[in-house]
């Protein structure tokens, strides 16, 4: 199922975002995170995505990212994603 990340996700809402991802990981085999509309991400957000990514692998599931804008891609790259 696609999950559209809220455009205003940031440090203030990262805990909530983390909770949502946790929930999503308990369900579907493949979680698709939709980054549309996001022009930048806070480090905390990308770290949550990264940790979730690792967790998914461990569980034999997958997290995929879509509609990642160029600025966000660059940010994710700097956070350690190889995309």
């Amino acid at each position, binding site marked *: 199922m696609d999950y559209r990340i809220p455009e205003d996700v940031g*440090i203030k809402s*990262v*805990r909530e*975002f*983390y909770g949502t991802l*946790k929930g999503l*990981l308990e369900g579907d085999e493949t979680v698709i995170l939709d980054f549309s509309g996001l022009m930048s*991400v*806070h*480090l*905390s957000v*990308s*770290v*949550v995505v*990264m*940790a*979730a990514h*690792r*967790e998914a692998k*461990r569980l034999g599931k997958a997290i995929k990212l879509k509609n990642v804008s160029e600025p966000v891609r*660059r*940010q994710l*790259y*700097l*956070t*350690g994603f190889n995309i």
Partner: protein
Amino acid sequence: MNSEIRDIFLEESRETLMNLESDIVSLEGHFDRELFNNIFRYVHTLKGSSGVAGVNSVYEFSHQLENLMDLVRSERIVVSETIIDLLLDSLDYFKLAIFGTDEEIEESEKMKEGLLSRIFDCITEGTGKAQGADEKRPAVAPARDERYFHIHVRFKEDIYENGIDPLRIIQDCCAQGDLLERAVDRSALPDFPQLDPEKCYLAWDLLIRTEKSRREMQDVFIFVRDDNEIVIEDVTEEYVKEKELPAADVKIGELLMDRGIINAEDYDSILEAQAQENKKFGEIVVERGYASENDMSRALKEQDRMRKKLESSTVRVDTVKLDNLMNLLGEIVIGQSSLSRIAEELEDETEFRLKNALHGLDRITREFQEQIMAIRMIPVGPTFEQFRRFVRDQAKASGKEISLVIEGRETELDKTVIEKIGDPLKHMIRNAVDHGIETAEERKERGKNPAGSIRLGAYHQEGYVYIEVADDGRGISLQRVREKAEVLGFLHEGDEASEARLLSFLFIPGFSTAEKVGDLSGRGVGMDVVRTNIESLRGSVEILNQEGEGTTVQIKLPLTLAIIEGMMVRVGKSIYIIPLLSIVESLRPAREALKTVEDKGEVVMVRNEYVTLVRLYDLFGIPADCLNPWEGLVVIVESGEEKVGILVDELMGQQQIVIRSLDVDMTRSRALSGATVLGDGRVALIIDVHGLVGELTRRQA
């Protein structure tokens, strides 16, 4: 919000905005990359600190402004009047949003909306034209050596709490050049279920190739350099094989090149010679006559200073701690003087030894005092710079063309003084703009440059700091002052009055404001206020006037407010301190030298000059031994133009005095400025010479 954080934020913002303002205004004259980078940094600072303080509105706005500025920095947008106006308006927004009242903050939100859409316009318009700009962009800067930096960064776990997004900093860092390698250390990252999303677990190792200096790279981390692990290593050597030279010599050579003392050819040939002769770079420079030994040693000093600047780290200290330190030092000084007293009383060979030891101690204490005072001293530059905008606005409002010249910005003043001279300076500058400088037409008629000029300068001289506001305007018309003084009854028609006397009328409250201000064609607005403010800092104000050519108002301030050299004088059983710097001389007058003059009261003739006599016992209502001046001593003191003779019983010697403030409520006498503790533990009051003279004038009036 935590009030301490808020206070720090306010304090920092004030500083930042001040710098920002002067840099933006300077930018208007000519675009300067360095200046623009400064502005960018200040906005960045503001963003960082507003984030920390949780002032989100300011944070978000500065973020957007920074985006725009980033485009300018990367030369995708050209700096134009529009951008400078936008910057200035943003500055006004910042001021309102940070320091405003609730209502003003609300208003600032509206401003913000307008500004944001202007920023948006600039970005879309600017980048549209970007290609064109890009093509035109020549290789202006001579290709500087590229350097390779290895940067290791590990943020503290709770970095987010500071309102800082470390990712932005990493991005900033990478934007300084080409990112060649990036490794993210995720070893500290917990498994997803144990993750605390509000903590930072990552560390970075980056390799960047850039033309930037190490200093510039360090600046990127300016907000996070404390508490975080940041290592910037210049690894150029590993990537580029260069001729190996001792680092310091390369630098001194570059420094000399910068100053135009040697050129690139000289530089190379010196390096060659150096390789053969095994001499220092500087020695060869002097030997070959490229620079005098003086020039060389100055350059070496500068190099040293630059190096120190590079290496030294700074600490923010609460000024209360400095005050405490100063107080403690004061107690040491007191303790020392009581030891000296004991030494005086001894009459054996230990006296000599003790005195010697005390002499050594005295030297150290003085040095110590200088060092502490140096900590309190800050350059006057930023205070001066903030007037650029003021002059610009005032000049525009009055339809005049005025440039502000700032001199001696590196002159250092006590922090307390810096805080208190802002208002008086503002008064003085406003006077210069409003009344000093003529309109462009008037100036042309007089054969002057149509653009007026105001000079704001500072310098040190003989234990004082001088601050001057000078304009090249029309000057003060002494004739008009005279007329006014006669109307107000300070002078009778035909009375002789020196220029100094006439100018001194300007300091009388309400003198110039009593009628239309323009009448005086000079200054006057609030000069009494200026003087009161400056005197509260134990300083004085003087007007130097050249009719038709301009006016200079000169402020003279003591270097420090805490310790002075004082002369102890005795009246009966009381000891008073007279600041040594105010004393002209002391003498025992002949009986015949005393007179009573009609409007001056009792005077004593000193070197063909009548000096008003003050009987201290009379003024203070205390007993004294000597009621007759020819039996006691008269200490002649000076305040501005005015001299006064103070009658005392005897002089008790001079001493360093630590000033303790006297409770302002305690006395109504303006002749006392504070107290100090003497070596024997007694308290002595300090005589305020300006106040004393003022009190006398008041009595006579």
